[in-house]
């Protein structure tokens, strides 16, 4: 067990070092992430002014801005830039061979690499995040949630990270069959944009789309954590939501394992 922990710690440490190599790109990427929230504030201020209403689908303008701030946090956990395309590229150019030759688990390795990716991001981004939330504190009309809600929120964020990771790595592993997954990834990103709640709060959706949302895991990537923080999901509904989210994580871990096992059997060792 100690040997396992030491191995994973070394992988994590080296991934962290690698992430810190390109400082300029990293700094720019971190800061640019905050730009969309400014446009969201202006957009919803304009929409409410034009509508002449104080509420749309149960949300005030402040609620909307608070929601978008929280989905920004959710997506900082669940988005996995270049994961799927990176796996497919490694399959196509043969770099995946090293995971087949060396006594190391590829999915575990990629997960640790992504944890390192996120840790480095949070280590730098917490300050601008804190500043943005401080400047926007007036939009959170209900203040801080209760400690148990906060704990559920953190849990849902961690599971959002795992869900995002296993969804994208599964798409990447489709590369064992199709080699090129960019179109598939585009479709996924499109669905993700709508059904994760990134574009608007999902409880605004009419039937039958609200049912569709319940049947797929995408809401747990952005909407669900934000809704938990805002107190829109509480009590037994919250427990059930967390259980379903955990269920999706487990199902996707299994799907990843099956896809990898079948994929490497089919793999042709491309690229010399």
């Amino acid at each position: 067990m100690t040997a396992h922990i030491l191995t994973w710690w070394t992988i994590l440490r080296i991934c962290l070092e690698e992430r810190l190599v390109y400082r300029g790109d990293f700094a720019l990427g971190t800061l640019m992430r905050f730009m969309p929230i400014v446009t969201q504030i202006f957009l919803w201020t304009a929409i409410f002014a034009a509508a002449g209403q104080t509420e749309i689908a149960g949300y005030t303008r402040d609620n909307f801005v608070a929601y978008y701030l929280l989905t920004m946090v959710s997506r900082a956990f669940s988005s996995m830039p270049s994961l799927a395309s990176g796996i497919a590229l490694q399959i196509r150019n043969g770099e995946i061979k090293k995971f087949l030759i060396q006594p190391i688990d590829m999915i575990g390795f990629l997960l640790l690499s992504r944890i390192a990716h996120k840790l480095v991001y949070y280590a730098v981004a917490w300050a601008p995040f804190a500043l943005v939330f401080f400047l926007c504190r007036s939009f959170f009309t209900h203040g801080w949630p209760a400690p148990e809600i906060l704990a559920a929120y953190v849990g849902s964020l961690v599971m959002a990270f795992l869900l995002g990771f296993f969804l994208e790595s599964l798409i990447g592993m489709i590369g064992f069959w199709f080699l090129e997954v960019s179109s598939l990834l585009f479709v996924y990103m499109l669905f993700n944009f709508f059904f994760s709640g990134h574009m608007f709060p999902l409880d605004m959706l009419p039937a039958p789309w609200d049912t569709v949302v319940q049947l797929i895991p995408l809401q747990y990537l952005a909407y669900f954590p934000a809704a938990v923080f805002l107190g829109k999901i509480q009590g037994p509904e919250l427990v059930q939501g967390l259980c379903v989210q955990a269920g999706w994580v487990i199902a996707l871990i299994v799907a990843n394992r099956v896809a990898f096992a079948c994929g490497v059997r089919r793999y042709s060792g491309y690229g010399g």
Partner: protein
Amino acid sequence: MSLIQLDGLAKSYTIYQKQEGLKASLAGLFSREYRTVEAVRGIDLQVEQGEFVAFLGPNGAGKTTTLKLLSGVITPTAGTAKVLGFVPWRRENAYRRRFALVMGQKNQLWWDLPAQESFRLHQQIYRIDAQSFAATRDELVDLLDVRGLLTQPVRELSLGERMKMELIAALLHSPEVLFLDEPTIGLDVVAQHNIQKFLKHYQEFRKITILLTSHYMKDIAALCRRVVVIAKGQIVYDGSLSGIIDQFSSHKVLTLQFANDTMPSDLARYGDVLEIAEPKVTLKVDRNVIADVLSAVLANHTLEDVSVEDPPLEEVIAEVFSQSQSSSPSAAAGAGQGGQETISDVSSA
């Protein structure tokens, strides 16, 4: 049982045959023609512990595919293989800790970090205790003379330096079997020589088993006593390097130096004239009649010097390769896998 045992090992691929042009590309959306590439066709081979074996063959002969099968990267279509008692494509960690694969055209180190970080990672992945790790790393670093490069990012190393680091990373866990796929490809002669020297020393000292593919005859001549020639996915020769000449060369090279301007004009009756530089002539003579030709020359002419030699090894091997290529319609197949191709299937996409 041998350390490496292959029985009827075969691997075939089905590859989409893309026709030229936009029209064919559009047609390919509805119906595609596939061909079966038989990269390896029933190889039987035994390699004993401590052997240094070279795989020789033209591009697309099936050498790299065989190494991929033995290292568990791909699964065979038919046949069996055991390396160190393991079936490679089951990819058991117990097996993966006992062999290494180095590919001259593939980088397994972390591109943006110094090589020592990749070494540290290998220490953990292969569970090498700290003392053995330090001792092995220092030994390899000194042998390959790269101590000053350990802290330099891999992307900033030259190709030769990078290959040395790849070898160190591959050998840190002291593998019992090492697969080398063109380890000196693209290197200059000095770097090639250094790698050869290192491999020779390391193999003799550690007595590990090495399977090497290379297109550089100097690599093979310097390192391997045993050569396996693969063509069209099959073994066509298994023996010593010099034995290739005996088996595949049909002629000898006869060089005659005539005395006192007595060089005859009808040299063609003795064999094919390769070069004339009076008073010297070089002839290609069928090895079955070399004794008769030599007797006739000595009886009819006054010579100052005479020599009978085997043709250069490179020439014989090139001949073997070209024979194997011309007897088959196959060309190098896509995706780096070679072998004999047959159009076998037309199906809708």
